[in-house]
């Protein structure tokens, strides 16, 4: 690598008017028969919900293919772009309406931002039973309409946050 990357900084408290947008969390309409919900809560090290976090999802389509379609910011209701963004609510909850990701070892790739968090964090929310043996944390859990995946920024049951090997 020849250039040093630009450092990150916190998303701060005042992203709410800028980054979330209408339809950000609805990768597909909730009326679609194969729509599922991915949701969960973001917690801090005291176990309190984080109401000023932002979660982004990036995922494969149900057939395992990688979406490469524009339109995430202005959804047409038909194109699956595989990407979405949702702010947490007052109870720390984020929610996506999406499709079940396919592939050999399917997961939702998640990015987490928050006031007080100086840099973005990456994690994988594997579908139940899909995590490789070496994965040191919990997978998402199934519920009646999809999957639940809580994000714990700090503590005993801290979420597995990733750093990507550079080659």
């Amino acid at each position, binding site marked *: 690598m020849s250039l040093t990357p630009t450092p990150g900084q916190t998303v701060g408290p005042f992203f709410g008017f800028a980054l979330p947008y209408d339809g950000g969390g609805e990768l597909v309409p909730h009326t679609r028969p194969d729509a599922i919900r991915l949701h969960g809560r973001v917690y801090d090290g005291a176990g309190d919900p984080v109401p000023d976090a932002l979660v982004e999802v990036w995922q494969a389509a149900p057939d395992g293919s990688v979406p490469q379609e524009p339109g995430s910011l202005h959804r047409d209701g038909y194109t699956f772009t595989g990407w979405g963004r949702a702010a947490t609510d007052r109870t720390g909850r984020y929610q996506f309406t999406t499709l079940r990701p396919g592939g050999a070892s399917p997961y939702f790739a998640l990015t987490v931002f928050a006031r007080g968090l*100086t840099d*973005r964090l990456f994690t994988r929310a594997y579908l139940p039973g899909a995590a490789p043996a070496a994965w040191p944390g919990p997978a998402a859990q199934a519920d009646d309409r999809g999957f639940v995946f809580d994000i714990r920024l700090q503590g005993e049951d801290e979420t597995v946050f990733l750093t990507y090997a550079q080659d």
Partner: protein
Amino acid sequence: MTTPTPSDVASQADITAEIEAISKEYDAAGVVEDNVRLDYAPYRSSILRHPTKALHQVDPEGIELVAPVFGQRDVDPLEADLTIQHRGEPVGERMVVTGRVTDGEGRPIRHQLVEIWQANAGGRYIHQRDQHPAAIDPNFTGMGRCLTDADGSYEFTTIKPGPYPWRNHHNAWRPAHIHFSLFGTEFTQRLITQMYFPGDPLFALDPIYQSIVDPAARQRLVATYDHDVTRHEWATGYRWDIVLTGSHRTVFEEDEQ
């Protein structure tokens, strides 16, 4: 005239002392840290919001090796001008901010989304939770988007934001900054950061800026005044280039159109 510090919150002197102690420790350790620290106690909100376990290293795979695609459907070219979103001209110093987005190998990040948001000239955000008693500018929202061009360049026209107070400690003020959100060619390159202005007197006092403990790394967030970007009788000009982490793709893949 300074108001006395209430006894239940830290003073600027307390915070500055903490910043300086960490800085000394860093210098003594002699190991360069290019990125921001997740654990940086002078920024009080980070105390309960940083992971305490080492990040788990993985080889990126599948979708992590690809980034979401944004296009003309997503971004109107007019969104790059934050001064034309309302009927009138916003108050403040009109400025152009431009630069290039590249990966760690210097390859341009082409046709990718850049989002910015900021306070107005008086240091006030349109955000409802901003309680700073400075005027809201009815002609300025403070949010813009653009796509980089084939060379990885972005350009925004906006107003120079003002510094603003916050509640980290008594008499805490943020240096003027613009928030930037960036995507690369891979999911792993996602970056949210802040751009600052040269010579800001608040740099030494600000625990968010100082959460990057290496002085040279901090300097990478400071734009340069560039008279070639300045527009005659219209706007001052700043240049700020952004480097994302190195991508895992080969040059061959990157070069295909």
